[in-house]
């Protein structure tokens, strides 16, 4: 039934997209008079050439895994959750409240409670647009994107007002207690003389994100609920006919989606900043959409796509540090990858489908 084989869909399409994005990026770098080969080398070395680079790449990847999974779960029910950004902000609020007001003796205790806090706040934030969609027919894309702005305003209100320690300039909460600080890769993997992952922010939340990948895979393909979500996503009328309640699926898939997006906060708020700052999400909610599209909404794909975007972020930072390539062009390069892998999927897929069809006909003849 499928026009192109599965391997081509999962590997060939993203690969060609990436190559096209890389070629265009190289042209952009050439156009401003820099050396694209040197730039590429710098990016690769900076992002994956050392444990330090990996520490940053995996830190960014952890954010993108959570938001990518969030978009994926909703997308299996054909809900387009654009609100990962706002949900992650609310997750940050949950983490901050938990870490600030509960005196934990040890991080191992703080982590699960923080996860619950993050997931609960974000899930509630996602549940409102879900309810409006399920009961009132308000389009989920519109409502979730509007909720991003409401979340930003709410956080700003709280951080400028009551959560900010008095006298502080930064719109941010106080630092969390030392007992809630998550161990970084440096603490975890450094033995002997030479510390590895030195100064890098990757922390135990990376493993939580891997667990979340497994959990999402299990949920979507191995449980009854997952089957219902997929069935609803494939055909709403068929799902209704089979006795699946659309309201239930919309609500549950969005709540899970929101909770996943919120869990990102254990990485950036609890693991890295160790306090809640304004704008802590930094677009990871939107990157999650590209990650989910590129990863074909499959946890393994999301994991790989998230690491790729982590690489782009950290490689971009290294470019900014050691070359004269301006920040805006680094964003252009990142945007090219997002555009090719996310938005221009069909541009690659349709010619590929034609090629495969031709090959099949020749094979049959």
């Amino acid at each position, binding site marked *: 039934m499928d026009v192109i084989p599965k391997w081509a869909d999962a590997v060939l399409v993203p690969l060609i997209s990436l190559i096209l994005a890389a070629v265009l990026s190289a042209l952009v770098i050439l156009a401003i008079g820099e050396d694209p080969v040197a730039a590429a080398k710098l990016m690769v070395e900076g992002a994956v050439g050392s444990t330090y680079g990996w520490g940053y790449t995996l*830190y960014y990847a952890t954010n993108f895994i959570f938001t990518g999974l969030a978009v994926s779960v909703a997308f299996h029910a054909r809900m387009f959750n654009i609100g990962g950004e706002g949900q992650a902000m609310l997750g940050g609020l949950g983490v901050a409240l938990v870490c600030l007001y509960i005196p934990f003796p040890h991080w191992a205790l703080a982590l699960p409670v923080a996860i619950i806090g993050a997931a609960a706040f974000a899930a509630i934030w996602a549940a409102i647009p879900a309810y409006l969609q399920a009961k009132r027919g308000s389009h989920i894309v519109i409502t979730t994107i509007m909720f991003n702005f409401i979340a930003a305003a709410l956080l*700003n209100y709280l951080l*400028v007002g009551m959560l900010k320690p008095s006298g502080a300039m930064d719109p941010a909460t106080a630092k969390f207690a030392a007992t809630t600080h998550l161990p970084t890769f*440096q603490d975890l993997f450094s033995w002997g*003389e030479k510390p590895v992952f030195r100064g890098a*922010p990757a922390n135990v939340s990376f493993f939580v994100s891997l667990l979340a990948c497994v959990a999402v895979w299990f949920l979507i393909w191995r449980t009854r609920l997952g089957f219902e979500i997929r069935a609803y996503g494939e055909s709403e009328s068929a799902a209704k006919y089979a006795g699946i309640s659309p309201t239930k699926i919309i609500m549950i898939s969005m709540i899970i989606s929101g909770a996943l997006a919120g869990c990102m906060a254990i990485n950036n708020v609890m693991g890295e900043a160790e306090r809640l*700052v304004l*704008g802590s999400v930094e677009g990871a909610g939107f990157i999650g959409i590209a990650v989910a599209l590129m990863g074909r909404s499959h946890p393994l794909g999301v994991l790989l796509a998230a690491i790729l975007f982590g690489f782009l972020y950290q490689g*971009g930072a290294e470019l900014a540090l050691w070359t004269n390539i301006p920040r805006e062009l680094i964003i252009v390069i990142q945007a090219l990858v997002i555009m090719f892998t996310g938005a221009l999927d069909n541009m690659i897929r349709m010619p590929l489908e034609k090629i495969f069809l031709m090959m099949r006909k020749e094979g049959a003849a």
Partner: protein
Amino acid sequence: MTIMTKLMSAATGLALTATAAVADPAIIFDLGGKFDKSFNEAAFNGASRWAEETGGTFKEIELQSDAQREQALRRFAESGANPIVMAGFAFGSALSEVAPDYPDTKFAIIDMVVDQPNVRSVVFNEHEGSYLAGIMAANASETGTVSFIGGMDIPLIRRFACGYAQGAKAANADITVISNMTGTTGAAWNDPVKGSELTKAQISQGSDVVYAAAGGTGLGVLQTAADEGILSIGVDSNQNYLHPGKVLTSMLKRVDNAVYKAMLDGTDMETGFNVMDLSNRGVGVALDENNEGLVTYAMLSETYAAADKIISGDIKVHDYMSDESCPALDF
């Protein structure tokens, strides 16, 4: 953890001695980017001036994310850059963690106090400069109403507004001061259209002098004020030239001087707390050929008298950030 810290500082000590020969300064710009026509750009201008005058080179980075603050600091410190200058209060927490790890590197931070032996903290008394701007505004106003437009609603900007309101009320006790903030997110620094709308709204409320402390948003404020025939007051850099004869003055905040000086001092930079205020010309009001027709002798003498009194301590301008409240203005 303490062993780790020791190991780290030992390692950096080695790295530093190895690279100490090439001690270029470095500057880190905040998320707004270095061409924001305001704060970051002033810092960039200071660095460029240093480079032009000394023929030196400096390393620079514009941040893309919060996580990069510490990253950029550590990477520059490890590469031997010295001193490392950063423009923006948001670096405070990152710097207080990084500075102890690189005891031989000097850091300079603007708009924030970081209490470490190798850090110079440069803080501006914006409320003092704004107080003078307020006096001039009250003197220039014919309607008895002056106004303020801030960028993002943060304590720092309220400090500008509060100083301005105090100055205006000192010059004319019956004056009405209107204050609006452009927004609550970083986008508020670069929204000239909203700045223009706010200006029009304030004009309809009777204001005839508007003071903008709003980064790129201020450009819209100054433009609209000039179009509508009222006076405006610029901020940070001297913006009098933008609309000659229409801009009453500009409240100068010499971020460029602070950066320039830090780079000029180089590795011998004295560290510690560094207040830039009226007395050392860190803040002030701009007078040049573009606004000389607007500034009357009486206005000038009152402003100078107030400046002298602030410097001598006879006038205490209330600092909003000292207690998060303002006696002259409600937010």
